[in-house]
């Protein structure tokens, strides 16, 4: 809005020559005028400066509100971890911690006595030493319950106070313990995805004090809590039913490599991880290596078919056991006849499988397993990954035993990842515990077998679920295919008959697999009324139950129009 300044009749500095007539004391006045002018000028300058600064402050935004909030260094914040649907897996909650100010404590004896009356297991000597030390500040106990806080408050001891600090809380308890991982008392990640998040640079954020909890974006994982719970629940039941010493399972998205669920039993409660470091509670799926047994026959068969030297019509003589030096290779369910490739697969013949590997040769065999990533340490976000074990030098006998899954120890997770490549058209996709789209997966994928070989493998897996050892794994309408593995464990340096390591490797729907499921059961005993404990009797039905419960959550719809013969039509 324009406005006119009133025209000044005479300013503070009238023009020279336009001065009023000189009166008495005119010199004085003139001097006064000059000084007055200087004074007025100074004042105007100072106030203009102050005014200018005020306007400047008024125009600049205040620094973010954090300037006023007390930025407590104890509150080391971590980002929330959420699952693929946004359910909370891990979060920070505030808990009070007890401290003392020894200089303000009047009588340490009395203080310790009083505290011991409301807090459990107080170390008298230690606390007495701390409270009479004359220091300014000592921590007495971290992570006390709100109730204990109220009781200590009620004691009214001078020089005893509380500070809030951050503690990690896992709403799901043990459900996804091995994946989510753990933090130590200083809230630094020590295992699982928690550690991965720190390694990605959260640690430096904390050191700089830039970790405002609400400023940290939550980290989304590829896990689905519902499916994770189903897998764990079924495995807990299976462990009881078959009195096994351990069990594990993984569900892998065959098209993206995302791990949707992964369980290893026995596990621990991350909210109270007193036993998390027990040797028996490690994450068997990624940090335990096992001889995977007959599930490896799928890889041997795929290798033979992919080499082009063997077709589905090829025949192998399984009439005689293979004698190699002082070793004899026998079949578990010996058919004592010549077997075609599909028969070899569904009867799980060691003899015929070993002969299949022989066709490819030792170097080719090792190169193939290496290409599938079964012999190298897997690269994934989880820090707990074991390195597979293989013979230092592959000889003929190694190739024979490895063809049916003995002589190489690898992790179950790697086995599932390699199996996904067998059924998804031959693309090996590294596993991921973070969400990943199909486009991203395709960019990472490497073609390890021909698409035609993959189609033949899908046919064989389905055939085995219809007529072979995987009959108990099927779920109506979901076209499950799979392969059992009953491996003998090495006990005191010898393979033992009654210590088994069972596995079942499945995928569904077999015409275009969406998910791969791998279940392991360690040392199962025969169920009531059963006389043996092969994988077909315990691991397969467990897979069936898991798939049956999980499909609604996984979003796979039942179809009744697919037949096995259609799997080979396109080739």
């Amino acid at each position, binding site marked *: 809005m324009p406005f006119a300044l009133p025209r000044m009749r005479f300013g503070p500095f009238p023009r020279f020559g336009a001065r009023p007539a000189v009166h008495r004391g005119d010199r004085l006045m003139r001097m006064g005028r000059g000084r007055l002018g200087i004074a007025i000028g100074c004042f105007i300058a100072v106030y203009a400066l102050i005014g200018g600064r005020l306007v400047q402050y008024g125009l600049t935004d205040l620094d973010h509100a954090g300037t006023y909030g007390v930025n407590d260094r104890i509150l080391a914040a971590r980002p929330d971890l959420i699952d693929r649907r946004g*359910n909370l*897996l891990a979060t920070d909650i*505030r808990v009070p911690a007890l401290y003392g100010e020894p200089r303000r404590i009047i009588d340490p004896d009395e203080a310790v006595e009083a505290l011991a009356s409301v807090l459990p297991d107080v170390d008298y000597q230690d606390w007495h030493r701390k409270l009479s030390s004359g220091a300014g500040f000592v921590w007495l106990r971290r992570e006390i319950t709100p109730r204990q806080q109220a009781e200590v408050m009620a004691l009214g001891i001078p020089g005893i106070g509380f500070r809030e600090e951050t503690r990690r809380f896992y*709403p799901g308890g043990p459900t996804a313990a091995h994946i989510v991982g753990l933090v130590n008392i200083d809230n630094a990640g020590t295992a699982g995805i928690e550690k991965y998040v720190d390694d990605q640079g959260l640690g430096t954020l904390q050191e700089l004090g830039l970790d405002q909890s609400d400023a940290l974006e939550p980290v989304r994982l590829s896990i689905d809590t519902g499916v994770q719970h189903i897998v764990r*629940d079924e495995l807990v039941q299976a462990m009881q039913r078959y009195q096994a010493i351990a069990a594990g399972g993984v569900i892998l998205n065959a098209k993206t490599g995302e791990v949707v669920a992964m369980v290893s039993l026995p596990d621990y409660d991350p909210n109270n991880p007193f036993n998390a470091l027990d040797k028996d509670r490690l994450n068997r799926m990624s940090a335990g290596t096992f001889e995977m047994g007959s599930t490896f026959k799928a890889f041997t068969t795929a290798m033979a078919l992919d080499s082009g030297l063997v077709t589905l019509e090829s025949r192998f003589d399984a009439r005689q056991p293979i004698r190699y030096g002082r070793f004899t290779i026998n079949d578990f369910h010996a058919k004592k006849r010549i077997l075609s490739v599909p028969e070899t697969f569904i009867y799980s013949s060691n003899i015929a499988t070993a002969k299949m590997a022989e066709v490819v040769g030792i170097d080719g065999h090792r190169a193939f397993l290496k290409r599938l990533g079964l012999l190298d340490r897997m690269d994934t976000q989880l820090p707990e990954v074991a390195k597979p074990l293989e013979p230092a030098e592959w000889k003929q006998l190694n190739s024979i035993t490895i063809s049916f899954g003995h002589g190489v120890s690898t992790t179950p997770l790697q086995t599932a990842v390699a199996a996904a490549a067998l059924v998804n058209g031959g693309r090996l996709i590294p596993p991921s515990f973070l969400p990943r789209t199909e486009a991203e997966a395709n960019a990472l994928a490497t073609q390890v077998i021909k698409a035609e070989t993959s189609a033949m493998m899908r046919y064989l897996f389905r055939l085995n679920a219809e007529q072979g050892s995987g009959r108990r794994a099927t779920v109506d*309408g979901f076209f499950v295919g799979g392969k059992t593995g009953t491996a003998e464990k090495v006990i005191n340096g010898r393979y033992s008959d009654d210590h088994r390591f069972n596995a079942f490797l499945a995928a569904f729907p077999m015409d275009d697999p969406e998910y791969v499921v791998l279940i392991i059961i360690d040392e199962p005993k025969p169920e009531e009324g059963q006389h043996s404990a092969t994988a077909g009797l315990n691991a397969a039905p467990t897979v069936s139950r898991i798939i*049956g419960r999980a499909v609604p959550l996984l979003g796979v*719809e*039942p179809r009744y129009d697919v037949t096995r013969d259609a799997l080979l039509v396109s080739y």
Partner: protein
Amino acid sequence: MMRLVNLVLVALVIAAATWTYSIKHESEQRLAEIRRLERQIALERQTIDLLKADWAHLSHPQRLQLLAERYAADLGLETPDANQFIAVEELPGPPQFDPGDAVGDIIAGEPSDPLTTGSIDGGGQ
């Protein structure tokens, strides 16, 4: 004349001082208010975090399953079978006739071509 100017100036000084003081006072009050609100926001945030954690714990499948098993008998709850989930188009819909179709009107209410679903045992003909 000068006296009037002086009086005006004195009045101005007093007014400016009063105004400055009141501004200062008001800004202090606002700052206190801001701090109070920030404390309140922090508390609310913590409460929200806690409630979220509580919600995640209470709605966790593990807990829901325990409750479902406990009250299964009273409420008649059962685990759904994978085959009980079917696509919408698998459901037999009402029979479709052209409007004004005499035959259609007669047999209206009777499915002319019952759709077969493989998902229901003994379903279809």
